[in-house]
């Protein structure tokens, strides 16, 4: 019994030592973990959203103020921002067409909403443009029709006609200087330009 118990105890020691020995090489990887933990502080910085929430709760009137600050006083910058954010949207046409597609109507509807809302202090210039595949003189007339088609549509949507001017540039000022359908489709458009109050 004693022998067997001694032997058992030895084997235990050996097994335990062996386990230790096997476990030892695994330790370094465990040690490397802390750096990973150290690299997580950025998530800890996340809380600021909570701070802004608090501000929003404190100042209910602030959101509209913030929005007004983003409308630049420089008219060119304003046009860039308004186009980027989709406040006003250019309307595109089919080849030799001056009727409004569903997409063009949607673009003008969005533009009308802005002009009647946040943009009600501004007037609008509609530039009619054509692609280069037509002739210069006829395209000047076609651009005039395109610009006026959009103007009429905006008026039916409730924008005061006196706020809208039109001009035709025909094919004189293409947006894309290329000579393929990709360029032409960009150049057949009514370009909406916000002008002074």
């Amino acid at each position, binding site marked *: 019994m004693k022998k067997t118990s001694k032997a058992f105890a030895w084997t235990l020691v050996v097994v335990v030592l062996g386990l230790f020995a096997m476990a030892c090489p695994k330790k370094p990887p465990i040690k490397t973990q802390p750096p990973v933990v150290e690299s997580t502080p950025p998530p800890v910085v996340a809380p600021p959203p909570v701070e802004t929430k608090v501000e929003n709760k404190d100042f209910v009137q602030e959101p509209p103020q913030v929005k007004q600050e983003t409308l630049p006083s420089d008219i060119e910058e304003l046009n860039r921002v308004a186009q980027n954010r989709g406040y006003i949207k250019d309307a595109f046409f089919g080849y*030799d067409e001056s009727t409004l597609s569903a997409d063009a109507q949607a673009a003008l509807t969005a533009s009308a909403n802005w002009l009647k809302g946040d943009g009600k202090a501004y007037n609008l210039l509609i530039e009619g443009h054509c692609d280069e595949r037509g*002739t210069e003189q*006829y395209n*000047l*007339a076609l651009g005039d*029709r395109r610009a006026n088609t959009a103007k009429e549509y905006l008026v039916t949507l409730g924008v005061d006609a006196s706020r809208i*001017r039109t*001009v035709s540039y025909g094919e*004189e000022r293409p947006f894309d200087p290329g000579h393929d359908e990709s360029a032409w489709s960009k150049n057949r458009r009514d370009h909406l330009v916000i002008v002074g109050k």
Partner: protein
Amino acid sequence: MRQTAFAVLALLLFPAVPLCAQTQITSTIDPTKAASVLRIAIPSPEMTGVTFTDVDAPLFKPLTRDISESGIFAIAPLPPNVTITPEVLQRINAQLLLKLAVKKEGEDFVLEARLSDATGAPQFGKKYRGSAAALTRIAHMVAADLVRSLNGKPGPFLSQIAFASDRDGHWEIWLMDWDGGNQRAITHHGALSILPSWSPDNERMVYTSFAGGTSEMYVISRRGGARTRISTGLALNTSATFSPVSNDIAFVGSVAGNPDIYVIKDDGSNRRRLTTASSIESTPEWSPNGRQISFTSGRSGSPQIYVMDAEGTNVRRISFDGDWNDDATWSPDGEQIAYTSRVNGRFQIRVANLITGESRILAGEGSNEQPTWSPDGKWLAFQSNRSGKWQIYRMRIDGTGIEQLTSSGENKDPDWSKKSE
């Protein structure tokens, strides 16, 4: 022998020949040959107090180019350093001899030009005087006088071509000589200025400019200077063109997106509307007698050429080939109309005979648009993008002799002056 006899007879009939001898040539030259080209010898000019480099580029080159492109003369090459005798002229088959002498008097150059036939009988003689800056104009004057001395008409050498160019950063109205020389800006709007059109007296041009933020008509002298805006009360104000017989200007005006042909006096009074269709109308052009106006209309579903009486009545369609036709312009005799016609997806110049109804295409590379007739009806200028950029070219009405006239920046909207000089 026979020719000499005729020449002697001519001398007896017209003893004072040196400065005008327009009819004599028909007496010394075989009429069947006169109908085609005459071979002309032009020996090296006599020069007194002048170097060849002074006068070669500004005077002799444009003069010999004009003569060789006149359609009336062919230059007969002379052997070098040979004394001109009737035998020499006969050997090179020259029917005419042009002798030039140039000298300097103070700051002025004086050119003497004498034309004689192969027997030495004088046909034409004239002196020209001008500064160095006037030498090229003198060259074109000599060419015009030579051609006039033979067929009573001066040719296109003194005519001018108006056009639009963006070479200085903005589209402005420019002028050039018939051969592309002497290019100069007439407007300095710093805006988009296009589509110039000459008055019948060659003194003024009407054009469209966006200088005021939108397109409006302006009139300016060929010498530049102040411009006059013609207030029409309409939008567009494009494709303006002077009547050949009155002070009316036809143009495209628009109300609420309906472009139509209108006429207005050059002082902005008496505006009249000539077309009333709901379709797009554009690009009016008067017939040479002022009684008719051609224009472009989309009323059939695609842009096509129509002609109406100057009062807006009696409208009839004249273009049936091509799915996009525009830029109609009448030949000086009123019998033909040249226009831009799309054939297989590409714009070409088409010339239609109004009497026979037939038309022919003057094909070329690239897109070719906006033809305009020379005042003698023998040439067409037009714009083409065959080089990758819009440039102005000139060709004979049979499509031969194509020459590029512009190369700086992009150039378009050519309009050839209505008068030859």
